């Protein structure tokens, strides 16, 4: 069952749009996060069970865009700029004020860009109407993205990877690796004990099986 369209704890006097599908066991702090959401049903933003979307997170989603935010993932203040597809897996953490974009919203060619910027003045509401090239972004499960990091269009971040604070990720990130800097570069691999126990809301499970009930 989806959450009510007006969130009972909301500090902003607004409504969660129809195109946002929120699980009844997720936490979405405010309808303010959907101020830039122009997506259309069946869904543009989907937040799964146990996920938390805090603070000034912004779903800047165009009419064709789809953002899925997986079970138990958590974010605070991430900017999702989406005109095609951004997917976040289960149990991933996206740091404060990270930016995840599947397009740049404006063409790279200066003359085309000029035309797009001029069109903003005639749009209601005044917004960049994404007609830039898009490339889907996929963030895996158990990923940790640091403060203020930027993930560029077309990037896939593998399961269990860590992206350091202020990194700018231009290329795919291998599973269980740590990348930092601009452009983000590999600094180490993380070892993982697949048999180690993890305390989950559905009991203690080995790491290799902890995410299975969520997929």
């Amino acid at each position, binding site marked *: 069952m989806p959450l009510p369209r007006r969130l009972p704890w909301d*500090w*902003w006097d607004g409504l969660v749009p129809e195109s946002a599908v929120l699980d009844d*066991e*997720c*936490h979405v702090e405010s309808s303010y996060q959907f101020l830039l959401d122009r997506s259309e049903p069946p869904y543009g933003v989907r937040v799964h*069970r*146990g*996920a*938390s979307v805090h603070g000034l997170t912004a779903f800047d989603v165009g009419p064709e865009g789809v953002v899925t935010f997986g079970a*138990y*993932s*958590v974010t605070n203040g991430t900017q999702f700029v989406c005109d095609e597809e951004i997917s976040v897996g289960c*149990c*991933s*953490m996206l740091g*404060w*004020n990270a930016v995840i974009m599947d397009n740049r919203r404006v063409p790279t060619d200066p003359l085309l860009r000029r035309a797009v910027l001029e069109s903003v003045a005639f749009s209601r509401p005044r917004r960049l109407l994404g007609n830039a090239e898009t490339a889907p972004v996929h963030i895996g499960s*158990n990923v*940790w993205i640091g*403060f*203020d990091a930027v993930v560029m269009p077309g990037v896939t971040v593998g399961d*269990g990877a*860590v992206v350091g*604070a*202020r990194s700018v990720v231009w290329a795919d990130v291998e599973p*269980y690796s*740590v990348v930092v*800097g*601009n452009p983000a570069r590999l600094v180490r691999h*993380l070892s*993982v*004990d697949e048999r*180690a126990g*993890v*305390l*989950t*809301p559905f009991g203690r499970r080995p*790491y290799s099986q*902890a*995410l299975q009930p969520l997929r």
Partner: protein
Amino acid sequence: MSDQSSGWADGRVPSNVRVGRGSVITGPDAFKRFRTTRDPGLVIGANCTMDLTHFSFQPDGEVTIGDWCVFASVVLMCEERITIGSHVAIGWNTYVMDADFHPLEPVQRLADVFAISPVGAAQQLPRPVVPTGPVVIEDDVWIGPGCMVFKGVRIGAGSFVEPGSVLTASVPPRSRVVGNPAQVVGAV
């Protein structure tokens, strides 16, 4: 405290905060994540200006700030201890933190994510312990906008941290610091 919010903060200063004469705290988020149970958990000296500053403290966090400091949109994230001297200026959107707040190791990290989820919190799942390292910012330090100061860092007195620097290691007094990761490039 002048509260500029139209929103969720109730505009009051928590009882375990000591604020010196002539100091001002503004902004709706100042104590939104002020969870410390220490008394005092936050001590601000005299004549400080804490503009839109966010005091995000965990239950054992303790922060001391001297006199005549000016902070603009700073996020102080404290698990254990942050000590800031007098005449310290910190620019917009700078984060100062004395822990990484989540484990790096994937298995522990997964347990942490479950514990902080609404479902896990309702079940009171325990959070893994994360390493901390007290942060010290000495007197007369200037930190530009968009910087990060990580756990265990000590910034020597009079140092000048250029905008956008990411400090992962301590720097001696009167250093000029720049870059990600930050390097000492000269003296002031």
